[in-house]
């Protein structure tokens, strides 16, 4: 199946500053791409270019071979866009969902049926006659998504559609989104700064930093081998540390082996490790020594912050007695839940700027 969506040599500037620079990006029909990036990375700008709301300063985005910028309304109407703010109108929920269908010239009975079906897919059909502006945040987000889906778009653009929802509502929203997309060949571009959204929805993840794609790949490979420390932090690695790889391939934290080996050439590197990978051992059980700085109870675990020149974060099961604050412990990193990343000068510079305790969190 050929590429449905294509970006070629796209450059976009705002106020004299380049905010987006993507050399090439292609999506196949039905593929779901999550663009993961921090605030200000250019995610929303990318979606606006794909929606045809702005024309790129250079290059172009194509939907099935037709340039989106300046394209006929027919092309734009093949795209659905759910923005960060629901943007509901001061009318009933059902009329909100029907409106894009009415603009497309569908008959009243057809659009009513399609709107109700879309609301039902998002489990908000019971709200159909409610005033849209009286809905809660979570309900409004679902209605907004139903409105984007009701037109059966060929390309669906999602701009952090569950932002502002609490954890439980957020999970439920993505459950319903996945279910709504499950039986459709809709191509999806979803942007977010939350790694967990990217990991559960995407076929591929593009990590966008400072307007450029820093890494592109399937979720498992991006998670296993983040391109650099910035990407690792975006992926919510709890520990992103400056390390050394020695001649014996051992990874050294503060010059001390931490229990991991690496195939990288000897020299500086970055270690990305989940808090669950950091094992706290009794004194004498491992070479790396640390002092317990803080112990707090998290959801289902103790969160232990350790000082070992660089701060380390470890999770212990709640059933286990946590160490006391101020206690000296030994630390070992489990290689199964950690990744050693090649050192890059730009990353090293940034890390230097963020080397204050706790900066890796």
């Amino acid at each position: 199946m050929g590429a449905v969506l294509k970006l070629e040599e796209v450059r976009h500037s705002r106020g004299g500053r380049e905010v987006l620079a993507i050399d090439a990006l292609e999506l196949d029909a039905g593929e779901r791409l999550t663009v993961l990036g921090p605030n200000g990375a250019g995610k929303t700008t990318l979606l606006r270019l794909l929606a045809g709301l702005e024309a790129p300063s250079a290059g172009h985005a194509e939907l099935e071979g037709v340039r989106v910028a300046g394209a006929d309304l027919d092309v734009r109407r093949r795209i659905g866009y759910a923005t960060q703010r629901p943007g509901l109108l001061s009318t009933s929920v059902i009329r909100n969902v029907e409106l894009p269908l009415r603009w497309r010239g569908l008959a009243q009975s057809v659009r009513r049926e399609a709107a109700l079906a879309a609301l039902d897919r998002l489990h908000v059909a019971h709200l159909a006659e409610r005033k849209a502006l009286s809905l809660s945040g979570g309900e409004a987000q679902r209605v907004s998504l139903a409105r984007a889906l009701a037109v059966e778009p060929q390309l669906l653009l999602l701009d952090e559609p569950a932002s502002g929802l609490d954890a439980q509502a957020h999970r439920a929203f993505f459950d319903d989104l996945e279910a709504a997309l499950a039986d459709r060949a809709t191509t999806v571009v979803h942007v977010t700064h939350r790694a967990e959204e990217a990991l559960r929805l995407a076929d591929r993840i593009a990590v966008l930093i400072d307007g450029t794609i820093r890494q592109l790949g399937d979720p498992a490979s991006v998670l296993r081998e983040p391109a650099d420390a910035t990407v690792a932090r975006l992926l919510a690695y709890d520990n992103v540390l400056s390390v050394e790889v020695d001649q014996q391939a051992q990874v050294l934290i503060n010059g001390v082996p931490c229990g991991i080996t690496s195939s990288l050439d000897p020299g500086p590197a970055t270690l990305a490790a989940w808090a669950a990978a950091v094992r706290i051992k009794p004194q004498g059980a491992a070479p790396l020594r640390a002092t317990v700085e803080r112990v707090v109870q998290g959801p289902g675990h103790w969160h232990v912050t350790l000082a070992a020149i660089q701060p380390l974060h470890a999770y212990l099961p709640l059933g286990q007695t946590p160490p006391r604050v101020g206690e000296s412990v030994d630390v070992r990193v489990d290689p199964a839940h950690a990744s050693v990343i090649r050192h890059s000068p730009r990353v090293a510079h940034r890390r230097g700027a963020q080397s204050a305790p706790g900066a890796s969190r």
Partner: protein
Amino acid sequence: MDGVHEVLGRSALVSLTATAIALMLGVPTGTWLALAHRRGRRVLATAVNTGMAVPTVVVGLVVALLLWRSGPLGDLELIYTLRGMILAQVLIAAPLIAGITMAGLQALPPDLPDQLRALGANTTQLVWRLWIEARVPLLAAAMAGFGHAISEVGSATIVGGNIHGQTQVMTTSIVENVGKGDFDDALLYAAILLALAFTINALLTSVQQRAAAWAQS
């Protein structure tokens, strides 16, 4: 002298016609000012805001000079006619309507126009939907425009000339009666003028508040 009902009818005709024309000019202008990103937008916005503050007597003077028989538009023979008075009142009400329309549309969520475009609206559908969303301030614009038109006396006197049976309206009648010391008639006309303004504004306010309450409920 004309009967009250004739003067009242003339006032209503002039001001309602002027308000209708001013709405047709002011609402699109205010919409363009709220949505456009082109050069010249700020200059026009400043002109509109200035127009909201221009004394009606100055508008009357300018219109009279234009419509004067020896003036540039003298051939139209609009001086001392109802059509000339309507023209002057349009120039008084239109900037007010444009200014309130602009402010009303700018008070909507800034990303709403793009959201509507992203939902597939063409330009006409987009503007129409924005007007519906801004219906409360748009009705306020209509009320302000009508209120400004029916209450002004400066341009009505200068452009209309307060000719009995032809261009005399409620406000110019009040001025004339006060000048003659006939305060009973002046008060009667004032009360009727107030009642007219109240009735029309009550109608528009009712629509406006129902629209506001519907969106909020």
